[in-house]
């Protein structure tokens, strides 16, 4: 006999939609706040978006962060942001971030490295990576990213409308938008850096989480063909979600496994990227059950053209 993780269930997804809307509403607000903060430059945005200099590296021997701060201040970098990163292979791992300078542009890194060499002559600083971005480039990238998100959402709207109908399309797009905002919002809350990779992860998820949504919609469409009475509408939707519960969980699980492995084993470069994917998978699956379908239900409930089968 086949193994089943979810037997025949009967969870009232639609009935609980008020709680879902509340929770999702909170996530969306959080996300909007995050986006506003990012545009204002007050959130933890990657260097590619803000411009500036980012130097990562480690010292051969133990160094106190205060000493590093002093060293940089003496070289004229008093306003540099210095972070000591623990939990890496190398101890004494530091992250130095300097705001963008429209005049100096992108020649600061070498100066910083020279200053460190001067201040710590016996304790070599191994540079792991340097990223310098002029301020103008950052702004261009921000706008390009916004376009990428908008075009993706539009593409999704068009495709779902073609395959199902306009209401499904709109509901799916809102759910996707909700997913993107929710992940950004949580990142903002946790003060994790939002880099171009994180945005890529979020966009990928946006596309991918539609898999679950489409699975549900597909089943809804099938089931709606069979019902005749008005009172059967919501139970039909509910039943649809319940029927596909097993597979939505299973598909999310396989991706989850991969992404969690990336998070723990993939190394520091991919950490934020994997985190965005993890959160995205969880939220994406949640929104297929509790956002995409209920929105469709609400719309149908309130419209004149009721209960058209898709």
């Amino acid at each position, binding site marked *: 006999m*086949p*193994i*089943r993780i979810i037997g025949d269930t009967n969870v009232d997804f639609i009935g609980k939609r008020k709680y879902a809307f509340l929770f999702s509403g909170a996530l969306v607000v959080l996300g909007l706040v995050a986006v506003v903060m990012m545009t204002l430059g007050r959130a933890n945005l990657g260097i590619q978006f803000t411009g500036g200099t980012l130097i990562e*590296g480690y010292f051969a021997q133990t160094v106190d962060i205060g000493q590093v701060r002093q060293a940089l201040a003496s070289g*004229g970098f*008093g306003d540099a942001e210095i972070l000591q990163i623990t939990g890496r*292979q190398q101890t004494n791992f530091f992250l130095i971030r300097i705001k963008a300078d429209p005049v100096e*542009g*992108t*020649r600061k*890194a*070498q100066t910083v490295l020279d200053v460190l060499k001067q201040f710590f002559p016996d304790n070599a600083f*191994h*540079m*792991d*990576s*340097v990223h*310098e971005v*002029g301020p103008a*480039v950052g702004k261009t990238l921000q706008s*390009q*990213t916004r376009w*990428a*998100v908008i075009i*993706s959402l539009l*593409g*999704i709207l068009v*495709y779902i409308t073609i395959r199902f109908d306009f209401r499904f399309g709109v509901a799916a797009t809102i759910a996707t938008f909700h997913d993107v905002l929710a992940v950004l919002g949580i990142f903002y809350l946790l003060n994790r850096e939002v880099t*171009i*990779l994180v945005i*890529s992860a979020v*966009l*990928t998820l946006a*596309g*991918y989480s*539609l*898999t679950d949504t*489409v*699975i549900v919609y*597909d089943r809804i469409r099938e089931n709606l063909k069979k019902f005749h009475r008005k009172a059967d509408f919501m139970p039909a939707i509910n039943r649809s979600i319940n*029927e596909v519960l097993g*597979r939505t969980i*299973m*598909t999310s*699980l*396989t*991706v*989850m*496994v*991969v*992404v969690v*492995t*990336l998070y723990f*084993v*993939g*190394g520091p*470069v*991919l950490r934020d*990227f994997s985190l965005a*994917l993890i959160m995205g998978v969880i939220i994406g699956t949640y929104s297929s059950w509790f956002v995409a379908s209920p929105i469709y239900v609400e719309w149908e409930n309130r419209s004149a053209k009721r209960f058209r089968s898709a």
Partner: protein
Amino acid sequence: MARGQTWKIGLTAFLLLGSLWYLYPSASLWQMSSAARDEMAQNDPKGWIDLQKKVMKLGLDLKGGMRVVLQVDRSKLNPDEAKDAVDRAKEILRNRVDQFGVTEPVIQVQGQDRIVVELPGISDVARAQELIGRTAQLEFKLTESPEQAQLLVDRIDRSLEAAAGVDTAAETPPKTDTAKSEKKDVLEELFKSDTARKRAESLQTAQTIPDTGAVLPPQIPKEKPLSSLLEPAGAMGWTVLKDEVPLVQNILSRPDVMKLIPPDVAFAWGTRSQFMGGTQVERLHLLKRQVEMSGKYLTDAKPSFDQFRKPIVSFQLTREGGRIFARVTGANIKKPLAIVLDGRVESAPEIQSRIQDRGQITMGTGSSYEDANDLSIVLRAGALPAPVTIIENNVVGPSLGQDSIHRGVTASIIGTLIVFLIIAFYYQLSGLIADFALLLNAVFLLGVMAVLHATVTMPGIAGVVLTLGISVDSNVLIFERIREEMRAGKTVRHAIDAGYARALAAIIDSHVTTLITALALFIFGTGPVKGFAVTLFWGVSISLYTAVVVTRAVFDFRKTYQTLSI
């Protein structure tokens, strides 16, 4: 065998062999130890180069190296020049980079006026940036005579003093002492301020709108404001203390001062600062504006040493250039000829005799043979048609790259393995079929990447892993559907057919939506993001074939089933 199964098996086998064929070079190269590689490079150079061409390149984030984005400033060019300025700049940069000796550099135009330069494995970043960013505009100019130069400085002094309201007529000897002590105070002031920014700010605040009669920054002495900051250095012009350079620049850029400078001369700073008696100084020259000869007449430039063991660049001129140079040098013997590079004076040696078509550029004091070599490189490759600025600079150290590869590959293997096990456990024998398809998916994807000569980046590796997690979903959908049909009472054969038929719609939908976002990422992304988008795109597309067609072919091996292990 079911209808059409033959071609499915045939196609799959063909694709499999093709992928393995394309992956073989990369696999064999990565397996070779560095000793084996050196051996091959020596004994079979042609084969070695061929192998390199077929192998998938490692991106900068994995190999280490430098990636800069340059912006070409076309503002000062006329429309015709501006049109191909970027392409010309790209060619010149390519020449410079080739001579610098980097393996596999990448130089591409991006957008209208940007150039991306990737130099893998570079260790001396500052030198590379210098090499790339230099405009390398070489000009030869004559200098103004010291007497005339001093007259100009005195004139500037008097004008500034008048503007500040200092009574110069009543100057008495003791005053020079106070002038000196004032100067000392000024120096003390300067050494107290700790950042250049603060200094600039204080200069800013002290200055009102530049105008005749505007207030001078407080640090500039009221008497002989310019002369007191300049130390005469004979025919070479003057030296200025490094900390006082901004003050001199401030004076020289004032409109009322600029009006005093005759149209045929201009001030120019030296390329490098020097040490004189323990303090750092910069050179300042007064040159004639006329360009006597320029770098475009150079046919060759080589670094060398002169008879004093000082580094020089010896150059050769075209016949036209030789004629011009002979005329200029012949008419100005014993006078200094300034060698101006990008607006700064490299050196200004005295013309000893008439020079024809061969000459040498004496490098300024404090330069090394390496400087002469770098200068030769840029002179040989030619001057950039327009100045470039580095707007983006990324350097990845080699150790980070190695670490990343290791982790990326480990994560991929572990992740895939876990997915394998879960699917096999949950769907039993059918699960194994799905796993087989997954394996094919991975091999095909890597094969496609090899054919496309894609660069392997960290996000690319993540993309491969992610794709595998996603592609297995198609099989999940099919199998769940089959299970459902069997629960509803259908025979195994019918359940399988129904499962594939019904699940197909959802599979295609989910693939298309993922592809839409991959496309958006590809269009709007740069570098590593593009790499990720490409692996995602191909991985998802390929999975349509492996998850659906291939597994179906396997199921179709038997016409009827009694039971199905699913």
